[in-house]
């Protein structure tokens, strides 16, 4: 492949050609999506043959826009955030050719939903303390353990899974990363009801689950490094979406303020304006981050964006309830359900207030993000680590 990667014009031409050959109105959606993937127009920065054309990532929005304008079916990215945002970049970075070919296409088209089997009851922020054991058995591994807070496990066909393969070395060294078949015998998914009433996340019990060695991602013992790739992509995915001014929760509260003058008090006015400024600052920071990525100057601002986003969502959703007064006392629905996506704007203010509490816990807590910024960005000295050189099996649990 010695030809130069396609530029904006070339992509425009290719999308045009593709649409000429695949009328969105007349093609079955799944067939359309598969063909789009095969044409390299799924995620254009991926390599040829894997849904991309090796084009600059910055050109993706242009392609998505052109497909949307033509009324093309989407792959419903909101249903497969973990797959698209975390599993795919990890498979791309560490997968064998065989694995990339098997997993990426149905992942992108949305045929196969993914979940993330990382956290355990005894290993959250300290992910490397995890104890789910994988033991080699010829060309298979046998896995036993328990995972927790697994979002969308009830929808998922596949999982990215980190396990302990060597308990005799310090915790970061003895881990191995797999792709786990969620339909395999021994995988049991139990809903975990959360503060909003429904169950986005689950407990997942793994009992003698057999995983073929071909489903290992990366080397045996290299699971920490592979996980780090996943987590870095997670933070970018959470903090970095493009929004117009007053997009997101601030827009909901601003609208309420405009429509209900009787709710206004001086203190709430002050709080609203502060939040408005912060939301706009966060929005411009996200925009700047995207411009940096496009210009090939990625910075550490991604963790800052996630940190700020969590605080802001919590502040604004709390403000919304206070502003509503009596209506803020009501809730829409406590029924235990198992949603297939998280939707902040279509539910009630009470739901937004409660769901936003998860923003500073999921994907690395705000405290952990502050540690990361302080140590990796500012270069401040690390925490005292009592567990660094201790074999995993000897750690206090």
């Amino acid at each position: 492949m010695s030809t130069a990667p396609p530029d904006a014009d070339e992509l425009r031409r290719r999308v045009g050609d593709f649409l000429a050959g695949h009328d969105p109105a007349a093609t079955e959606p799944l067939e359309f999506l598969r063909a789009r993937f095969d044409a390299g127009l799924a995620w254009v920065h991926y390599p040829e043959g894997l849904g991309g054309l090796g084009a600059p990532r910055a050109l993706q929005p242009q392609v998505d826009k052109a497909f949307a304008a033509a009324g093309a079916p989407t792959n419903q990215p909101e249903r497969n955030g973990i797959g698209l945002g975390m599993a795919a970049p990890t498979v791309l970075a560490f997968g064998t050719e065989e694995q990339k070919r098997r997993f990426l296409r149905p992942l992108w088209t949305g045929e196969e939903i993914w979940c993330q089997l990382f956290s355990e009851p005894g290993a959250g922020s300290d992910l490397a303390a995890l104890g789910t054991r994988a033991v080699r058995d010829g060309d298979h591994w046998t896995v036993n353990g328990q995972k927790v807070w697994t979002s969308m496990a009830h929808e998922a066909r596949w999982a990215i899974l980190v396990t302990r393969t060597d308990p005799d070395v310090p915790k970061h060294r003895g881990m191995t990363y797999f792709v786990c078949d969620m339909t395999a015998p021994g995988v049991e998914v139990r809903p975990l009801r959360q503060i909003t009433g429904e169950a986005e996340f689950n407990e997942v019990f793994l009992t003698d689950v057999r995983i073929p060695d071909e489903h290992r991602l990366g080397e045996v013992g290299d699971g920490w490094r592979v996980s780090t790739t996943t987590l870095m992509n997670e933070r970018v995915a959470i903090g970095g979406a493009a929004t117009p001014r007053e997009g997101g929760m601030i827009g909901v509260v601003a609208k309420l303020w405009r429509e209900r003058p009787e709710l206004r008090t001086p203190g709430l006015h002050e709080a609203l304006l502060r939040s408005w400024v912060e939301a706009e600052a966060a929005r411009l920071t996200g925009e700047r981050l995207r411009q940096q990525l496009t210009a090939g100057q990625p910075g550490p601002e991604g963790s800052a964006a996630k940190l700020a986003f969590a605080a802001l969502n919590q502040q604004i959703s709390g403000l919304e309830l206070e502003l509503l007064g009596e209506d803020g006392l009501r809730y829409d629905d406590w029924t235990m359900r198992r949603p297939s996506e998280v939707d902040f704007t279509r539910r009630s203010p009470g739901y937004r207030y409660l769901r936003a509490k998860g923003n500073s816990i999921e994907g690395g807590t705000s405290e952990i993000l502050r540690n990361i910024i302080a140590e990796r960005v500012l270069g401040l000295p690390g925490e005292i680590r009592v567990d660094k050189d201790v074999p995993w099996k000897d750690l206090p649990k």
Partner: protein
Amino acid sequence: MSDLLYSEIENDLRAGVRGLLDDKAAWTDVLAGTEKDDAHDAALWRALTDMGVTALPVPEDLGGAGASWRETAVVMEELGRAVAAVPFLTGAVLGVAASQAAGDRDLLSGGRTALLAVPFTTAPNGPLPGGVQADGGTVTGTVTSVADAAAADVLLVPASGGLYAVEAADARLTPVVSLDMTRRLCDVTFDAAPARRIAEGDDALRQALAVGAAMLASEQLGLAERCLETTVAYLKTRYQFGRPVGSYQGLKHRLADLWTAITQARAVARYAADCAATGDPDLPVAVAVAQAHCSTVTVRAAEECVQMHGGIGFTWEHPAHLYLKRAKSGALALGTPDRHRAALAALVDLPYGS
């Protein structure tokens, strides 16, 4: 969408200005300057003028650099970092912006420093001072708390619904002991001083104040970064209880939050600078956001800098107090964060009353 990054030219410009400031405006020089009679560092101001950075947005045919407020903002960042005592915000920004808005080619091309004679707290969207009256080619009245007035060749004073140019020599300046002695104030009195009207109404003045507030955000950004860097460097080397104090989470987390707020300050300051440079109609909103955010962040950065240095941060012989005084004065200048939020309420249709 506006370009929120720095161009290569802007980065080169930054390197040049920083080199000059490292050489001529180390904090010890700045501190010494605050105890001198001279209100500002005339040698440094000359060096900046020779470098061509004091007339960046002025067209080349008028002797300027034909650049824009974006590049000016980069210079402001560097001057903020150094807390340099030069009349740049007042002369090279507010004075130039007012002359430009008034379309006054003489002022722009004259190679003389023109400054706005308004209280330094005047906000672009707030009430304007009304203490000076124009009468038959002269102006009379007093304006208090004019920043850098001692550096002016020409004073631009709002009077009787217009903007007037007055030779500084024809005004009486009374120096004020200022909270920030790196940007000193004067009370200015005009007593039938000969004056030339350069603009009708207050559009030119408000435009200049808006551009000034946009540029001030960049100065604040530079200062906030300097405070953070100074603090981080100190916390790595200061040991207490057998550990660097920078290894304590109580401090680390506050600095991580500060860094996060500074990354946002950079985005909002760049946006405001770009709006000023391109004449974007969103400038009033961009300025209100930038000022409300950057003023707050910079004061926090300077206050943390003092606190995290402990006793040494409270001494005269340490730069922290220079940063703090500049930061707090800057937060009051050209409108407090609260005034900018109040302006925003009207601009983005979030009024208190109906």
